[in-house]
């Protein structure tokens, strides 16, 4: 390239350009677009609206609290994050005073007598003779600094072991691990350190580490008994059963009565599915060690896995009978009695326990359990005497006081109850008393509506003062108790104070949960980290850590954290849910299956739970058969496992194998009537069979069991089936509040929306489903199909076309309902789609395990989809054919489709085909046989507000519309009547009514009908300021050129649509007529006296109404006259009469007409007809008019033309209207020779 071809170099001077060019261009611009003067009223309006919007935006912002992220809970007034001198991030929270609490507390104090008042007002420390409670100064550096810092060197192995033991006692296992490591650093084979590290590693689910530690110890000391026993335990949980079994048998041959060996041996049998053998070992364990609660718990669980939990009391009794050791026999009998108490068999329990107590009068435990049984039986005084005798003994334990406290509570002696309860708690705060706090609080709330905040709060603090070493447990329970009372602010303050005094994983966890609750995820993560460092085996800490990581966008780390929580506690349902949800968010739902596979490999002992969760994950990703395999694997290990059986029932239901599903569900319900999953599965079965009674029973059991999500969900399904689509949507929305995983709700709610015509809901829920699971999900074809229909239903045709294009490209052509998508695209006709649906159904029928009706559903759904599609395309005949087919082929499993078809058919019956609609050139309407012909609704409003037409439509009264002196009284704001949808969409119609108003110069709606899913497709009539009638008619709004003369008088109004023309009549006279397209509405309620539901504002009618009629035909003018009370007086239409009707004088004198009617009928002003841009003014000659227009009624009227009427009518074509789209017109009479027409 030579230099001439190169672009010229950049020259900065060029950008300013020559001034001459600048001047030329500006002049040209000015010439093209001379400066516009903005009308002052427009200025004022823009400024006013702008200021209003800014003020409204500010209010909304304040209401949402977006100004200071993160949003705080309602009870926290404000929150500021600051860094204090020590570098710690301190969260200061200011709290709103709970005035309500104080009031409630005061009320309770007044109600409960003088001494309770005295008691509750006095600090607990004073009552207990303790020094006043004082805050300790905060530790230097703060707790986080203490945790973060490395622990000081213990100095020697002995010291290290002592410090480690101390840390373990204080529940700080993380510190203990560090001290044990210090000990090992000095002595690599220190047996205690190795053994404890092995145990701690096992607890935190690190099985390889645990095994390595123990192996190392056993290498140094092969006969270390504890290490050998621990190792068998680790091997068992790792799934190395053969190795564990051999080792255990070897040790049992030496010490056959060693409980730990027996326990582990039972577990080995249990995990290998040898349930009977496991039961034997469990019984042996309990017989050997009856005082060990764990032995009883394990036996109970093993029996549940075997499905024999009912046999437990009998087994214990048998063990007691066969026991040779009298002490063990007595204790087993106690257990037997206690178990009977727990099962409600108190009479037998008392018999058993009395026998034990009589045999061993000195056995305090026997008497204690007997007292408990007697309390349950209602022998309260005898029980109290027994307990008081026990407490008088020198060996009395504080926890016995709790029994006495309960007894006193049952006797209604609340004051004494409090005393005993406080004493028990202060003596042994972790001896079960803390757990009773919730029960106590709950009871107090139930009985006196007093949250018992102050005394219990003080009690906690006093207990901590007495037992500072229990800070973790006490603080945990205290904070949890405060949170349960919804006292987050107090919980936070309390926690801050506690953390200045000490530390513990429980405290840190509570802090993490509080911070998570107020969306401070960074803080929550730090707190959860601190918690799990303090105790690596603390599963809740791992879970909250995962939650915080997830909210910070670190989802992979969150998944690992959840997995760790699940390894530590395989039955941790919350963590499993979180794991699956996170994978969903990552658009990798199938990966959760892999996650549980990994967990099964890493911890064999948890595999029953993991199997069930993997089954759940598989089922959600449409591998229900794989899920069933997992459930069966779990049932091989635990044949009577309740959750496994319930999951089996659920999955079998999903697969359509109803008979075995019902058997499994009933098996569970026989043992656990309120079981969540079993009832939900039974509800599904019932719904699929249309057995509403069975479904309702399941729903009631779910409700009684407190399973809110399942209960509301089932209610939604029942309502969906009944065709109560809006109710169903509402129930699903309620259910959504109770579950973190709402995808099932979205599916059903979307169906309810689609079938019920609420396409907005259907559109939104399908969007969520597609966003969450992606277009590659096997269910996506169906969602896309429904999404397309929902979009068409909303009128989003462009978006629908784009969705269809994407669906066709990404969908699986081999999978139903892909043919539906092809039909939407016009590639195949509906007949082919139906044939395909029958093919799919036939394939399903070949699989005998599927219920035939399920297969039939393909055709049902296909016909519904085809019907909707045809309806949206305007092919009403096709739509009608398929809807009728659905109605004529009722099926108990698909009743909602039948209901949908009925509704849609009713919607389109008003939409006559284009051929049937009369053309604009047809003659005027014909009169009916009488005024009752063609009535779609008639509210005479003389004695009631009901519809007296043949349709007998239900009338909903909103607010206090009422009958008053034989007419309906509408009091204004919020008060109106509502009818269901009245099909006026594509037909002729007339709406006639009488009204008068006592609200001067207000504007309000007289009636409205709006398509539910279209923003502006509406019919409405409003009375505006200056008595102007305004008819909203979708795109063809019209304003009456003649005002209502006196709104305080009765006026008769008719709105009519006929032959592509809308017209407005007042007191029997036609005011205006305009060319208009049909409304094309198929949904939305008809409201009398109010605007449509979603328009906001309060402009409800304020006045009286009577004789409200909706006709499905156009009325002849004589009929309108008759309705208006001027029948026979007027000849021909207003147009025929030149817009001016001269009434005979004698009629007027007779007073046949109201003053308002007279004013209208006498008005000689011109009558204006509008057809597009063609205007026709009719009036008696001779008149001179000024024709005016307005593109928008807010901008005032502008001059259009001056016209002279010399012949009775004058035409005008408004050329400007085409450019503007829509214009309003009015005529002002400038000069007139007609009597009574004053120039304006």
């Amino acid at each position: 390239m030579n230099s001439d071809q190169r672009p010229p170099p950049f020259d900065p001077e060029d950008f300013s350009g020559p001034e001459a060019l600048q001047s030329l261009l500006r002049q040209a611009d000015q010439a093209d677009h001379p400066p516009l003067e903005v009308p002052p009223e427009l200025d004022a309006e823009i400024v006013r609206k702008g200021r209003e919007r800014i003020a409204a935006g500010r209010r909304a912002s304040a209401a949402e609290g977006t100004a200071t992220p993160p949003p705080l809970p309602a009870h926290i007034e404000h929150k500021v994050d600051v860094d204090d001198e020590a570098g710690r991030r301190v969260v200061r929270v200011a709290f709103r005073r709970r005035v309500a609490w104080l009031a409630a507390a005061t009320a309770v104090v007044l109600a409960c007598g003088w001494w309770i008042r005295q008691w509750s007002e006095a600090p607990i420390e004073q009552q207990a003779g303790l020094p006043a409670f004082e805050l300790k100064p905060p530790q230097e550096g703060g707790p986080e600094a203490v945790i973060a810092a490395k622990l000081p060197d213990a100095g020697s192995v002995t010291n290290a072991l002592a410090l480690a033991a101390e840390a373990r006692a204080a529940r700080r296992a993380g510190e203990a691990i560090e001290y044990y490591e210090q000990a090992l650093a000095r002595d690599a084979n220190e047996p205690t350190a190795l053994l404890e590290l092995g145990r701690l590693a096992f607890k935190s689910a690190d099985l390889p580490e645990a095994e390595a530690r123990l192996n190392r110890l056993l290498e140094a000391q092969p006969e270390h008994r504890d290490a050998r026993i621990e190792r068998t335990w680790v091997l068992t949980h790792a799934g190395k059963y053969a190795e564990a079994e051999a080792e255990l048998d070897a040790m049992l041959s030496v010490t056959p009565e060693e409980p730990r060996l027996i326990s582990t041996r039972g577990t080995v049998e249990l995990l290998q599915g040898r349930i009977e053998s496991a039961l034997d070992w469990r019984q042996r364990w309990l017989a050997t060690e009856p005082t060990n609660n764990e032995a009883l718990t394990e036996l109970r669980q093993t029996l549940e896995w075997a499905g024999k939990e009912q046999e437990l009391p009998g087994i214990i009794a048998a063990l007691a009978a066969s026991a040779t050791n009298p002490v063990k026999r007595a204790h087993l009998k106690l257990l037997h009695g206690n178990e009977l108490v727990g099962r409600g068999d108190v009479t037998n329990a008392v018999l058993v326990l009395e026998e034990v107590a009589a045999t061993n009068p000195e056995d305090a435990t026997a008497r204690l359990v007997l007292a408990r049984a007697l309390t349950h039986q209602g022998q309260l005084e005898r029980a109290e005497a027994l307990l008081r005798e026990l407490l008088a003994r020198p060996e009395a334990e504080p926890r016995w006081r709790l029994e006495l406290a309960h007894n006193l509570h049952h006797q209604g002696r609340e004051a004494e109850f409090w005393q005993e309860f406080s004493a028990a708690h202060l003596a042994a705060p972790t001896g079960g008393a803390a757990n009773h706090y919730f029960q106590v609080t709950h009871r107090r709330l139930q009985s006196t509506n007093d949250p018992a905040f102050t005394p219990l709060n003080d009690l906690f603090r006093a207990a901590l003062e007495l037992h500072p070493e229990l800070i973790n447990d006490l603080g945990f329970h205290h904070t949890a108790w405060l949170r349960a009372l919804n006292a987050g602010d107090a919980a936070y303050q309390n926690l801050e104070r506690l953390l200045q005094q000490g530390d513990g994983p429980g405290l840190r966890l509570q802090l993490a949960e509080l911070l998570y609750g107020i969306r401070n995820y960074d803080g929550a993560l730090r707190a959860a980290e601190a918690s799990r460092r303090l105790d690596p085996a603390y599963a809740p800490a791992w879970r909250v850590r995962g939650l915080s990581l997830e909210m910070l966008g670190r989802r992979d780390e969150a998944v690992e954290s959840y997995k760790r929580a699940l390894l530590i506690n395989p039955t941790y349902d919350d963590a499993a849910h979180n794991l699956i949800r996170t994978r969903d968010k990552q658009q990798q739902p199938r990966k959760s299956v892999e996650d549980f596979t990994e967990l099964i490999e890493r911890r064999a002992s948890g595999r029953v739970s993991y199997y069930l969760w993997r089954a759940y994950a598989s089922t959600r990703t449409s591998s229900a058969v794989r899920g069933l395999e997992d459930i069966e694997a779990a049932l091989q290990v635990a044949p009577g496992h309740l959750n496994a059986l319930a999951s089996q029932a659920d999955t079998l239901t999903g697969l359509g194998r109803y008979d075995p599903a019902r058997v499994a569900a009933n098996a569970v319900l026989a043992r656990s009537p309120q079981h969540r999953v079993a009832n939900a599965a039974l509800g599904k079965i019932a719904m699929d069979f249309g057995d509403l009674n069975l479904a309702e029973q399941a729903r009631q059991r779910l409700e009684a069991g407190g399973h809110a999500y399942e209960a509301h969900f089932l209610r939604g399904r029942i309502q969906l089936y009944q065709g109560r689509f809006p109710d169903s949507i509402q129930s699903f929305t309620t259910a959504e509040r109770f579950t973190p995983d709402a995808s099932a709700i979205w599916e059903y709610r979307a169906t309810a929306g689609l079938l019920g015509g609420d396409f907005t809901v259907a559109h939104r829920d399908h969007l969520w489903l597609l966003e969450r699971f992606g277009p590659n999900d096997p269910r996506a074809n169906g969602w896309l199909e429904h999404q397309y229909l929902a979009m068409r239903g909303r009128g989003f045709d462009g978006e629908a076309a784009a969705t269809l294009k994407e669906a066709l490209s990404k969908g699986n052509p081999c999978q139903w309902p892909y043919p539906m998508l092809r039909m939407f695209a016009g590639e195949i006709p509906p007949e082919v789609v139906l044939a395909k649906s029958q093919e799919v159904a036939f394939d399903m029928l070949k699989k005998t395990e599927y219920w035939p009706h399920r297969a039939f559903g393909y055709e049902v759904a296909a016909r519904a989809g085809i019907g909707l599609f045809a309806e949206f395309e305007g092919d009403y005949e096709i739509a009608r054919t398929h809807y009728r087919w659905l109605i004529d082929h009722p099926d108990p499993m698909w009743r909602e489709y039948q209901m949908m078809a009925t509704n849609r058919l009713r919607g389109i019956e008003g939409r006559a085909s284009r051929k049937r609609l009369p053309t604009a050139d047809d003659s005027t309407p014909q009169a009916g046989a009488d005024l009752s012909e063609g009535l779609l609704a008639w509210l005479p409003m003389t004695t009631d507000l009901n519809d007296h037409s043949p349709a007998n439509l239900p009338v909903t009264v909103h607010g206090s519309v009422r009958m008053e002196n034989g007419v309906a009284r509408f009091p204004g704001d919020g008060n109106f009547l509502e009818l269901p949808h009245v099909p006026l969409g594509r037909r002729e119609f007339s709406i006639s009514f009488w009204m008068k108003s006592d609200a001067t110069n207000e504007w309000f709606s007289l009636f409205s009908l709006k398509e539910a899913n279209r923003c502006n497709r509406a019919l409405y009539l409003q009375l505006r300021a200056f008595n102007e009638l305004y008819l909203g008619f979708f795109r063809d709004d019209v304003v009456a050129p003649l005002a209502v003369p006196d709104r305080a008088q009765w006026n008769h109004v008719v709105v009519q649509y006929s032959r592509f023309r809308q017209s407005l009549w007042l007191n029997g006279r036609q005011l205006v007529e305009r060319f208009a397209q049909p409304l094309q509405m198929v949904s939305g309620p008809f409201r009398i006296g109010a605007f449509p539901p979603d328009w906001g504002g309060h402009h409800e009618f304020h006045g009286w109404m009577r004789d409200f009629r909706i006709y499905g035909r156009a009325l002849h003018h004589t009929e309108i006259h008759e309705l208006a009370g001027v029948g026979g007086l007027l000849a021909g239409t207003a147009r025929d009469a030149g817009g001016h009707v001269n009434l005979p004088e004698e009629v007027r004198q007779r007073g046949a007409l109201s003053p308002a009617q007279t004013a209208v009928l006498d008005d000689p002003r011109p009558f204006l007809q509008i057809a597009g841009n063609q205007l026709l003014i009719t009036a008696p000659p001779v008149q001179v008019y000024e024709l005016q227009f307005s593109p928008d009624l807010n901008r005032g009227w502008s001059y259009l033309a001056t016209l002279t009427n010399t012949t009775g009518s004058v035409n005008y074509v408004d050329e400007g209207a085409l450019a503007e789209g829509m214009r309003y017109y009015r005529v002002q009479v400038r000069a007139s020779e007609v009597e009574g027409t004053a120039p304006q």
Partner: protein
Amino acid sequence: MISPEAMPSPEPAATDQELIAALNAGETAAFEAMYLRHRDWVTHLALRFTGDRDAAFTVLQETFRYLADKFPGFALTCQFRSFLYPVVKNLSLMERRRADRVIRLEERLMNEPDPAETPSPVTDGDGLAALLQVLSPDHREVVVLRFVEDFEVREIAAALEIPEGTVKSRLHHALKLLRASPRTRHCFPERDESNVQTSLSP
């Protein structure tokens, strides 16, 4: 009587940023000042885009409605006119599209034949479009912003959301074309070609 000289000097007018800060703080009175300051410019711009008086007023309303919805929490990161320009432009285009749609719809409803093609832009006369007809729409836009609206290069870049280099390049080429155009050639001083050649010579 107090002479004008004796009257206290008025407060210096608040800057756009100050007005925005006031609006963010909830002082809605600042909206009027903001509106009056930019009203004429917005109206003129809208008129240029839509070619219709009423449409321009509609755009004016919509523009300030859009602006009002930004508060509170509005942060201005460029010149205010640069912020407003794309708003006015897009609203104007929407308004034009809407008007076109309505016209077509009305005509269809009236069973009249479809309208002929939209008339081509004016090419004769001394109007702005005629003067700039040698330029592509992109070039025309930067020229109008630079020479008619008196925008700085960085303001144009912000308004059109393109790099400053692209603005400069478009201006450069546009000026080159205008220099060659018979309608605007006379605005440019004669070049001393010899000097250019000399300066370019090694």
